[in-house]
């Protein structure tokens, strides 16, 4: 099963994209655009242990963070395609099923590691110093990156077997979970091997120690930077990790943890028994599908269809209202309560806190926004929706306007606050965001026909905004927010979404 699952995913378009990104990661690492250093300007000699450490940190950081999103989805696919119902009738046990999924996830991430390993070898052969030591290059990937990927693979299966973590909420939860564990591990004064599942602290401490031996004046700790060259780097020799039992045991422990997480998934896995799922029911809607299928015994009234008047005028307002309803449909009372609370907090807060509350409120909208532009693909309604007149000119603007309305309403607390306080720069950033956020969601949704890319991009972006990165700050957290750029980008992204949809309708077979 693991083999078939791996092959199924390896033949997917998303796998090729991730493969491309990993190749790019290997390239930027090998060409020195991705730099591991000890502050202020100490860099290791490019020997086998250094390249091994560099590649390991790249894998643990990037694949640890984003690999989850690549592999998550295989159990959901079995639910959606109905393959699960077939699997459920076979003797395959729950533990074996989740084990197969875990191994398949692990294999996908393993291929990525293999590619980075090849990039590392190429880097050593091209610009390496000293003799080529295969073990020094491979061992950190084997003992550090692989256990990390095993945990990521197991978490992906676990999240998919827990109903409320299967969808977009799980994507957001994982992002913050990974960030939290990584921060705890890196910020601890003394190393905590049992918290360091990424192994970044283990590598970092070793690199920092090697730098201090060579240059006692170097700062403690280490840095990992992208596309940022070090001016006049000073080289030190790094000899890699001494694989003692004390180092290896926690790594073996993480493999066992990964296995344990996969087995835990078997406990939550409902074996595709959808009647167990917590589908929300309303008053008068309590019948299950099977019950509902029973034909009614009551006599039926015969009705003739009244012909529609030939002259019909398209109503954009009607379409806008149904799109708005669609966006808000299915949200429960507590969702509205939290949203209202966040709007009130925007009003109650002041200055930077208002902007932070605004960013948090708009982050809260992530699951509502991630369906923009891909809803028809997700629900297989493409053929019905896109065979209606002018699907690009009618539907896409209505959708964008509906999302814009929701974003504006949920940001109304901050809007009032800025208006009353005469905070023009933040008011402009607010307008920019209201245009930009739905445009970004629509563009990514139409281009990828999936919710996941927007969820990953948006949660990362908002996290960086909340941590004060001015160039990315469309919300207005800082006075330097480039609001005009984001307003223009919003227009560009909306145009991109429209062109992409038009292209999909004109040149592609939508049904395949």
């Amino acid at each position, binding site marked *: 099963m693991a083999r078939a699952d791996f092959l199924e995913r390896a033949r997917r378009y998303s796998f090729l994209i991730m493969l491309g990104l990993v190749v790019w990661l290997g390239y930027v690492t090998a060409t020195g655009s991705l730099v591991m250093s000890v502050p202020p300007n100490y860099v290791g000699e490019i020997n086998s242990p250094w390249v091994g450490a560099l590649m390991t940190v790249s894998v643990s950081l990037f694949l640890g963070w984003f690999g989850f999103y690549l592999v998550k989805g295989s159990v959901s696919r079995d639910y959606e395609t109905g393959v699960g119902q077939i699997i459920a009738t076979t003797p395959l046990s729950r533990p074996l099923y989740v084990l197969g999924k875990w191994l398949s996830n692990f294999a996908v991430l393993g291929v990525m590691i293999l590619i980075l390993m090849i990039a590392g070898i190429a880097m050593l052969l091209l610009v390496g110093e000293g003799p080529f030591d295969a073990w020094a290059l491979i061992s950190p990937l084997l003992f550090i990156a692989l256990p990390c990927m095993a945990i990521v693979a197991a978490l992906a299966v676990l999240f998919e077997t827990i109903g409320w973590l299967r969808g977009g909420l799980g994507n957001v939860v994982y992002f913050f979970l990974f960030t939290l564990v990584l921060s705890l591990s890196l910020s601890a004064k003394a190393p905590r091997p049992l918290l360091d599942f990424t192994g970044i602290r283990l590598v970092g401490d070793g690199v920092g120690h090697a730098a201090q031996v060579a240059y006692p004046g170097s700062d403690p700790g280490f840095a990992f930077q992208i596309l940022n060259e070090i001016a006049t780097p000073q080289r030190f020799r790094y000899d890699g990790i001494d694989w003692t039992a004390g180092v290896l045991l926690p790594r073996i422990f993480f493999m066992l943890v990964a296995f344990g997480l996969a087995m835990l998934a078997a406990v939550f896995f409902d074996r595709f028994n959808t009647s167990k799922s917590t589908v929300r029911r309303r008053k008068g809607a309590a019948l299950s599908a099977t019950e*509902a299928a029973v034909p009614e015994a009551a006599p039926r009234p015969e009705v003739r*269809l009244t012909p529609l008047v030939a002259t019909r005028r398209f109503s954009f307002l009607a379409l806008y209202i149904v799109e708005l309803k669609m966006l808000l449909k299915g949200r429960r009372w507590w969702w509205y309560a939290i949203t209202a609370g966040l709007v009130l907090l925007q009003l109650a807060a002041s200055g930077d806190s208002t902007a932070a509350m605004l960013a948090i409120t708009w982050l809260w909208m992530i699951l509502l926004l991630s369906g923009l532009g891909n809803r028809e693909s997700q629900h297989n309604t493409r*053929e019905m929706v896109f065979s209606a007149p002018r699907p690009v000119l009618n539907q896409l603007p209505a959708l964008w306007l509906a999302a814009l309305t929701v974003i504006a309403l949920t940001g109304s607390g901050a809007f009032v606050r800025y208006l009353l306080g005469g905070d023009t720069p933040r008011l402009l950033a607010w307008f920019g965001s209201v245009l930009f956020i739905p445009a970004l969601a629509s563009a990514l949704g139409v281009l990828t026909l999936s919710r996941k890319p927007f969820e990953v991009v948006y949660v990362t972006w908002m996290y960086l905004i909340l941590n004060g990165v001015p160039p990315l700050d469309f919300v207005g957290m800082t006075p330097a927010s480039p609001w005009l750029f984001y307003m223009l980008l919003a227009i560009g992204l909306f145009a991109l979404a429209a062109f992409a949809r038009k292209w999909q309708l004109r040149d592609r077979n939508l049904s395949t």
Partner: protein
Amino acid sequence: MRLTIEHLSKQYRRDFWGLREFDLDVGPGVIGLLGPNGAGKSTLMRMLATITQPTEGTITWDGVDIVRSPDTLRASLGYLPQDFGVYQNLTGREFLEYLAAIKGLGGTSARRRIDELLIVVNLGDAARRPLGSYSGGMKQRVGIAQALLNDPQLLIVDEPTVGLDPEERVRFRNLLSDLSRARIILFSTHIVSDVEATATEIVVIHKGRKLRHAPPEKLLQLPEGQVWQWVIPSEALPALKQQHIISGTVRRQDGIQVRVVSADSPSPEAQPVPPSLEDVYLHLVSGNGVKQ
């Protein structure tokens, strides 16, 4: 009201054509598209529904090329795909309201139309339930209702009776017959009895090509004198299947009554019987190398 298709072809891969050199010219009525699985029926329907672009050929609706200007047809089109999904959180009524707005319908006329359609497809009582709680047959009926929302002049329904119980199938056939007076209905299926009950014209497709286009009564003349019926012992059936196209079998106390399509009498006991549409269909597709 005229739908004209000329030299229509769709190529999926270099060595595989879903449809080849297909011609058709039809006016109001129910046109049944009959063919085995993979014959090209859905490919043709998706091209007519402006979802897929043809590789070659033209499709014109009242003289307008719909490949170049698909919106000309879309305003008058109702389409039920073979495989479709729904929005689970919406009720049946809300889903129809959404698609009505997408099709440019609104106001009281749309609401009245939805009310009528919900009764016509027998979902009046379930209209306020979320679609997630619907059975497969109920979802199929919602699909039928959405195809009729805009009172289409061209109604394309791809395998519409899949998942419907016998009672609903009959209702749907009657509905098609009622609707057929002032519109073109293209109805694809591989279930011969569905076509037999409703179609005013039948098009038989096989391996991407049109085999025959004629009214049912003309098609029934094709294998006249070539359908035979007699009783054989049960153990003789496998051997007979190897030699002839068997269009039907009925178990009896004295053996199995078989129905065979063959140009010559297959057995001294065989008696010629009037052909059914099922016999015609098998006769046509077997001529292209397919046996039951």
